[in-house]
């Protein structure tokens, strides 16, 4: 059972308060979005949850274990794909396994099963620069998934893509989510994206940032591609816009 509890996180960068008493929970196989304007501390929150930063107050608990300030427990995909340009896609994807001390050959064998599922077949021996933005993002996501299939933090994974590619990636992601069952915390500033993908949306607002509202998206899974054209979708959007 993957369950992540973040409670009472307070963080200041030097003298500037960034986050004030942020708490949230992520349950098994849930996708929770953190929605907020740029600069409200979303990325800082992820740095804290992943263990890269230590909060001044508060705790991060994964499956009952306190992991505050301990990196290497939760998969984290940052805004840029950050694929290493000098490694092939395959060798990029096996990186988390290599870091855990696995042999190259076995790691390659392990990841090969997922290339098709992630729509990446045929890219194994290519270098990141030979791939389109969307494909690179898929590869980065697969790498994130190879690190841990428990809990993943995704920081605006689709924000750098153009609108058409983004739509395609959303459909792809909805599809993949049904297959791989990953509990995911998802940062975005795109309201449509948040409603389309999430089970719950946490609104992070203000300076310093706090979670001011939690909205549950009732639409069952698997979601249809046309969900974002329905009346309910617009209703959610109206509610969120009112509160931001």
């Amino acid at each position: 059972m993957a369950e992540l509890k973040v409670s009472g996180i307070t963080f200041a960068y030097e003298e500037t308060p960034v986050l004030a008493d942020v708490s949230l929970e992520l349950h098994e196989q849930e996708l929770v979005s953190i929605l907020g304007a740029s600069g409200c501390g979303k990325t800082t929150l992820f740095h804290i949850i992943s263990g890269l930063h230590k909060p001044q107050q508060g705790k991060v608990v994964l499956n009952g274990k306190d992991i505050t300030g301990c990196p290497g427990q939760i998969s984290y995909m940052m805004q840029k794909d950050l694929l290493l340009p000098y490694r092939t896609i395959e060798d990029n994807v096996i990186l988390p396994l290599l870091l855990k001390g696995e042999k190259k050959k076995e790691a390659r064998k392990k990841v090969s099963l997922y290339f098709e599922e992630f729509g990446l077949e045929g890219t194994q021996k290519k270098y990141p620069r030979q791939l389109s933005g969307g494909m690179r993002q898929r590869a980065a996501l697969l790498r994130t998934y190879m690190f841990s299939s428990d809990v993943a933090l995704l920081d605006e994974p689709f924000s750098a893509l153009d609108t058409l590619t983004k739509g395609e990636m959303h459909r792809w992601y909805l599809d993949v989510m049904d297959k791989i069952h990953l509990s995911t915390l998802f940062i975005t500033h795109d309201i449509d994206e948040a409603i389309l993908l999430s089970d719950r949306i946490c609104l992070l607002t203000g300076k310093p940032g706090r979670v001011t509202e939690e909205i549950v998206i009732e639409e069952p899974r698997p979601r249809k591609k046309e969900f974002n054209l329905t009346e309910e979708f617009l209703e959610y959007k109206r509610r969120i816009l009112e509160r931001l």
Partner: protein
Amino acid sequence: MKRKLQSITSKILPATAVLVLLALWQTASAAGLISGFLLPSPLEVVKAFAEDFPLLMDNARVTLLEAFAGLAVGVLVGFVTAVLMDGFEWLYQAVYPLIVLTQTVPTVAIAPLLVLWFGYEMLPKVILIVIVTFFPITVSLLDGFRASDQDTISLLRSMGASKTQIFRYVKFPGALGSFFASLRISVSYAVVGAVISEWLGGFNGLGVYMTRVKKAFSFDKMFAVIFLISAISLFLMWAVNILQRISMPWEEENR
């Protein structure tokens, strides 16, 4: 197609320039505009080269041996220094000015001292080459390490990577490009360094040969050995390029 054409023209142009220059030189010499003992004609140089070929090769072998030994140690020293200085900030602060200082001392001035301390054999020459070759390697590797992407390092840290793993997977491969750029420089420094150290004391090598023919006023042979040294340096730089292509296949794929 266009790119291929460009790459052909980019090779034709400098080659033509060299040929034109040689032709002008030859014509000027043949017409008697330049006196033969001040500046020999290209043909005379070629003749001298052919005449002394076995001798030149013998001496070149010695020089190359010194250059390679010095370069190998120089690269090793440069690499280790860079890694240590990157790992420990206090070491960087302490040692960096010292390293720069070693480069301000003129080679010609320390070479005789080295001969005095270490004799006329290979050792002083190798030491001199180490001194001139490690510096570009250290500086460019350090720059390469320090320029590595902070986000990528954060990402690896979030995956629980150790300092050594970050070095192995991010810093080292990221610095390879600047390493090869500095290796090209160091290779030519190594050859020139070997020749200079032979000038100032030694029994054989291209530098010794050079001093000898200079004293005999055989300028044709002098030019022959100058061209040979240039050719060796060029060949070694080309070899570094090939090595770089083999070790950095991703650059090739991106072209």
